[in-house]
């Protein structure tokens, strides 16, 4: 049974200065097919999809949609032909309500009253209930994704593109989303599913196109391959799991007791009664989808947000009311999620960025004056020890690729001989080899006696490197459990279950 082709792409190429994002990409999606676009970070998936959605013009190549030439010059043209897209980074407006957000994503939206009614009906039918009058800023990340999805569904799309949709969902929510997607496919809507999560693709998708460094390296049926085979096709070489040490753990180095904090942002998540304890040599993995308080927790631990003195204790000393530099003196270093803008200043050189966090522990400032020679040496050491690919330490941070900058940021913190390390999303948006290097560095640091806290949305990563596991949900932290022997279902429940989603109750085709 061959289904007719819906979308075909032939020889699509797009180059930017310094990098060829897509090179001679060809593939086809059939009607009602769930097609995966697989590749690691930086393989060119986003660019390809932007060309399909009309955000970017290809340098060469052509596409057809249901046989007719398809070359959208802007997203509204793509929408008019029946292509809809759910972005990875949501295109939502926090201060506007759900109905207004949906209207902005539609070509000719009906009047607000009618739109609100349709939102209520459609969202309920697909098992993703939404209240049209709520401000998007007050919604959780999973609920926000529902807004994006409903926005697409209301336009009866022929092709629905989903870009890394599950990074903000608990395992239970992922299951429900997949049921919804299968319903859609049965009704004739094709789905282009972009991801690097191999198990999900094997469970959901009919066919897969694998991209590596901008080129198509394989097309296959995911169910017929193992996850390991897919990984090797994606990365091009065999990956080994990082080496874990089994040394006994030491005394408690970081202790958080009943920490409650309001979020600094208007639409953030407050922390409620968070408690945890990490021993020397131990890695605590904290899971949680975006918007559940990860950023706030990092800010509270790094010292950018102050709390009660004994709410945060480092080596027994109460540090909750002290700022980042006092905590660095006490041995705690932190690496925030946002590389450019938070962990590093984009327009400053690597040397200056090394000074940013290393000033205290590396004694780079004497009586107020900066020792630039020592700072440069420190930066050069980081570049050398963590294999940061850069022409030199004088280049601006923004000139580095995501993976290299992340290696620098994490390396900068680990090079300070810290007693406690806190990192948020250590390998987000980083290519596989850099990610492996970062994870190994964290494990090595723990083996050397530091207490490490890793906050991450990537459950596979946490299961791989963490000794103990806890989940952050709505600002509350679950009790921590040893990672070994934890099932995916149990993890999902710790992360909060399905948050109100329910199985779709549509008529089956």
């Amino acid at each position: 049974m061959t289904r007719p082709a819906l979308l075909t792409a032939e020889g699509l190429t797009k180059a930017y200065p310094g990098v060829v994002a897509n090179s001679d990409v060809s593939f086809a999606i059939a009607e009602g097919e769930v097609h995966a676009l697989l590749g690691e970070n930086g393989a060119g998936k986003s660019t390809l999809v932007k060309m399909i959605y009309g955000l970017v013009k290809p340098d060469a190549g052509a596409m057809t949609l249901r046989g007719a030439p398809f070359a959208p010059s802007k997203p509204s043209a793509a929408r008019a032909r029946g292509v809809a897209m759910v972005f990875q980074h949501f295109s939502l407006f926090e201060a506007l309500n759900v109905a207004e957000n949906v209207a902005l994503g539609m070509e000719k939206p009906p009047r607000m009253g009618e739109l609100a009614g349709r939102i209520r009906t459609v969202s309920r039918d697909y098992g993703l209930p939404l209240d049209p009058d709520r401000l998007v800023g007050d919604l959780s990340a999973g609920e926000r994704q529902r807004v994006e999805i409903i926005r697409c569904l209301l336009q009866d799309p022929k092709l629905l593109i989903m870009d890394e949709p599950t990074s903000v969902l608990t395992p239970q929510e992922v299951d429900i989303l997949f049921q919804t997607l299968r319903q859609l496919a049965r009704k004739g809507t094709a789905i282009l599913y972009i991801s690097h999560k191999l198990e999900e693709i094997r469970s959901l998708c009919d066919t897969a196109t694998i991209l590596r460094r901008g080129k198509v390296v394989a097309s296959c049926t995911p169910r017929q391959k193992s996850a390991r085979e897919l990984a090797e096709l994606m990365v091009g070489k065999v990956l080994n799991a990082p080496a874990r040490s089994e040394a006994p753990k030491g005394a408690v180095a970081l202790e958080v007791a009943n920490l409650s904090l309001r979020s600094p942002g208007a639409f953030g998540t407050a922390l409620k009664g968070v408690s945890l304890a990490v021993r020397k040599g131990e890695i605590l993995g904290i899971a949680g989808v975006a918007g559940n308080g990860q950023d706030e927790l990092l800010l509270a631990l790094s010292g950018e947000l102050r709390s009660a003195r004994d709410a945060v204790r480092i080596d027994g000393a109460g540090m909750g009311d002290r700022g980042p530099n006092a905590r660095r003196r006490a041995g705690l270093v932190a690496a925030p999620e946002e590389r450019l803008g938070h962990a590093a200043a984009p327009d400053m050189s690597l040397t200056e960025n090394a000074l940013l966090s290393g000033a205290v522990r590396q004694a780079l400032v004497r009586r107020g004056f900066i020792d630039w020679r020592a700072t440069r040496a420190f930066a050069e050491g980081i570049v050398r020890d963590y294999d940061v690919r850069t022409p030199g330490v004088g280049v601006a941070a923004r000139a580095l690729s995501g993976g290299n900058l992340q290696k620098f940021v994490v390396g900068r913190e680990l090079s300070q001989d810290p007693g406690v390390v806190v990192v948020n999303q250590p390998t987000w948006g980083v290519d596989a080899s850099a990610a492996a290097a970062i994870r190994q560095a964290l494990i090595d640091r723990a083996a050397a006696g530091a207490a490490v806290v890793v906050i991450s949305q990537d459950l596979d990563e946490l299961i791989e490197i963490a000794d103990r596991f806890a989940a952050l949900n709505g600002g509350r932290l679950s009790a921590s459990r040893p990672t070994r022997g934890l099932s995916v279902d149990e993890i999902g429940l710790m992360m909060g279950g399905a948050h109100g989603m329910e199985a779709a109750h549509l008529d089956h085709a």
Partner: protein
Amino acid sequence: MTGLLGGIDPVVLVASLMVAAVPIMLAAIGELVAEKAGVLNLGVEGMMIIGAVCGFVGAVETGSPLAGFVAGAAAGAGLSLIFAGLTQLLLANQVATGLALTLFGLGLSSLIGQGYVGIKPPPTGDVPFGPLAGIPVLGTILFDHDPLVYVSVLMVAAVWAVLRFTRAGLILRAVGENHDAAHALGYPVQRVRLLAILFGGAMAGLGGATISLIRVPQWTDGITAGAGWIALAIVVFASWKPWRVLVGAYLFGGITVLQLNLQAAGARIPVEYLSMSPYLITILVLVVMSADRGRAALRAPAALGRNFHASR
């Protein structure tokens, strides 16, 4: 009651504060639209004074006050075009560009107005409401004004309606909230902002023309005396809501008129303290409004002041 206000009739006071508020209301509602789109234009003072001088020159040369008002609005919009070009196309810092606009506008207006000091412009008549103007109290307050008073209130109403109920208004608000998302959805961020800036410029220019053609009415250097800055403060005071701009403008108009009347009536407070009172009270109001951190943070458009550059 009149004794307390230095012998001023309260009805006349209300009527005159409505007139005094017009320039600031126009400038503020224009700036509100720009800020709702995410643009902070500190050049309001410059655009107002260019509008004042061009409006004055236009009215004097053609003999028609209407031509003057049109000229004033056009001049304000024209000056704002420089701001739009620098910040939207050339990605210049919005604060610095706004200041440059004000400094340049002050200098240029002084230059243009060289030959027009001391001349009287053609008078702008009141809107003829006939017998309605004769009604005691309400007649003076509601029906005895020049056309700009009504235009200013209509503008506030129009802005409110467009922002609240139309698709264009929704798109403008979206651009001001999250310009990256708006761009990803395919909306022309820079074009929306350009139009918003031009509107703000036209309104500021019109407000300035009101000062030189109705309020004073004549031309002197620096005739706006900080009205543009007050308008900026009123936008903050109004929490970016159109109807509150009306309230803020009337409040400020009231204070201005009151202190002028007190000065004229020979009140015992020295002149200098009276003349600084509008500015001090504006500062006080600003402080009170911004002190409630949470609320204020919610109301300001999230992308306010940040430039947009489409990367890929």
